[in-house]
């Protein structure tokens, strides 16, 4: 029998109850590759049946684990095979019907988001990919829980600038079709470079083609726990600070490992990976920005923010990598604006700009995330922002993503409110000089050299 000291027990309880340690998501990946058919009606039925069959117990198991271990499991979610791969055989373009079938299935099994209304077009698009991309605005406007993503570049393939040009329009249209909800549709759409196939986090989750039939991936969280650890060491130098963050990340990740293994056993689904990301929520005490500020920055977004984030991101990975048998997904610190109270406040105070956020994405996971920008922003500017962000990912061999909300009718100084985990966001300024000529060129940006790095 192992004994635990009161300090250990209290530390764990404090992490959960006061510092908001939680399991952000258990996400079941479900392959839809056996759901293809000539008829869209048949695909619809097969997709719905398969998701409902495999995920029937997902939420119940998540709730059971929460009770047994006393660790909140915030979200139960589903990722599926990129829908373009499944729908293409139908020869129709009415893919929205599949989005609706997925939405019904997600509602039926009680998950709040289902990702995978997706396609991978880093080198070019098939007719099915194009049909899917064209259908994204309507699919997001007419469903509640379905999330879409499109991969437009990789380090090995370069950037598909035709797809990037198109995605600027798609983001704009997704926002316009949901103008009554501040452009919420665009908040469910991610444009990736170097997308990963086992990401459990929304809105960018999809079930990659190299994955098994079903798999369980876990996303941990714990910005509050890391914040508290950083706050206890105001005088520590960077070596000591990194060590503190590593130790904390280790403990947080162990919880993810435990919950992932428990859920996988209870569901009879193979355990995939733990995603080590620090995922903030709008709740006070659950902010990544606050960690950077606790390192000695008056406000996130000021000079030093990129270095602080680089240290945090790396230390979280080092600590977490030791704690789990299989680390994957995005694994890094997320810096969404609307979902992080520290980011929201810095943006409202005019201390955080798009340009600084872009720089920060070069050293953290993911990218320009949940940023509201003026509704009148031209689609070509959206595309140019995507191109910049994708270029950072392509050159640095990392995942980058863009999730922007061109809020219809809103200007800089206004704010948008999505509620819940998606939070609220002040509308931030973008550069107004046109990028149209650049975006209009089309074609592909060649894959970068993998040597002569400097």
């Amino acid at each position, binding site marked *: 029998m192992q004994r635990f000291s*009161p300090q250990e027990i209290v530390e764990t309880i404090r992490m959960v109850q006061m510092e908001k340690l939680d399991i952000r998501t258990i996400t079941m990946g479900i392959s839809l590759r056996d759901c293809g058919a000539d008829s869209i009606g048949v695909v619809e039925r097969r997709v719905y049946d398969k998701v409902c069959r495999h995920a029937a117990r997902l939420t119940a198991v998540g709730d059971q684990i929460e009770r047994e*271990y006393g660790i909140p499991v915030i979200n139960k979610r589903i990722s599926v095979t990129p829908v373009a791969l499944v729908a293409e055989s139908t020869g129709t373009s009415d893919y929205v019907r599949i989005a609706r079938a997925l939405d019904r299935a997600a509602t039926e099994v009680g998950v709040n988001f289902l990702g995978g209304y997706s396609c991978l077009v880093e080198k070019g698009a098939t007719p099915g990919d194009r049909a899917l991309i064209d259908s994204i605005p309507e699919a997001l406007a007419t469903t509640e829980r379905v999330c879409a993503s499109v991969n437009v570049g990789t380090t090995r393939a370069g950037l598909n600038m035709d797809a990037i040009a198109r995605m600027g329009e798609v983001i704009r249209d997704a926002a316009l079709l949901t103008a009554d909800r501040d452009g919420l549709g665009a908040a469910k759409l991610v444009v990736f470079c170097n997308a990963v196939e086992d990401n459990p986090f929304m809105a960018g989750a999809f079930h990659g083609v190299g994955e098994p039939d079903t798999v369980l991936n876990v996303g941990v969280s714990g910005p509050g726990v890391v914040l508290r650890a950083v706050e206890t060491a105001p005088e520590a130098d960077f070596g000591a600070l990194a060590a503190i963050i590593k130790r904390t990340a280790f403990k947080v990740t162990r919880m993810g490992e435990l919950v992932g293994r428990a859920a996988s056993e209870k569901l009879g689904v193979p355990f995939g990976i733990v995603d080590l990301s620090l995922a903030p929520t709008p709740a006070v005490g659950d902010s990544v920005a606050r960690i950077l500020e606790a390192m000695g920055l008056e406000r996130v977004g000021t000079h030093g923010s990129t270095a602080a984030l680089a240290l945090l991101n790396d230390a979280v990975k080092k600590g977490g990598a030791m704690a789990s048998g299989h680390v994957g997904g995005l694994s890094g610190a997320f810096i969404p604006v609307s979902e992080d109270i520290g980011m929201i406040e810095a943006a409202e105070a005019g201390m955080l700009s798009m340009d600084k956020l872009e720089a920060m994405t070069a050293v953290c996971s993911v990218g320009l995330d949940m940023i509201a920008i003026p509704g009148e922003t031209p689609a070509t500017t959206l595309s140019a922002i995507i191109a910049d962000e994708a270029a950072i990912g392509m050159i640095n061999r990392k995942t980058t993503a863009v999730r922007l909300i061109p809020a219809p009718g809103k200007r800089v100084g206004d704010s948008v409110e999505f509620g819940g985990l998606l939070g609220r966001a002040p509308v931030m300024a973008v550069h107004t000089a046109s990028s149209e000529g650049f975006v209009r060129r089309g074609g592909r940006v060649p894959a970068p050299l993998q040597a002569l790095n400097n």
Partner: protein
Amino acid sequence: MTNPASVSSSNRVIVSVIGQDRVGIIAAVATILADASANILDISQSIMEEFFVMIMMVDLEKASTSFDDLRQRLARKGEEMGLRIDAQHEDVFKYMHRV
């Protein structure tokens, strides 16, 4: 040999009581556990940051009530007494504090 890649199949839970010290805490918790035929394997208590902390390791192997039920009874008793009483599977602490 336990399989390190697997969650344990043990029925041991950690019951933790945190709050102001007062007469009868151990008796109250022990009564609930005895009524549920849950076996107390170990008890420790200490004062941390002015709070009374009591920790019990409890075996539910032969328990007559479900873990869920027991957890709720303990939580209710905690509310009655102005304390926080949690019951969590021991794996939580094993995973976090033992490698």
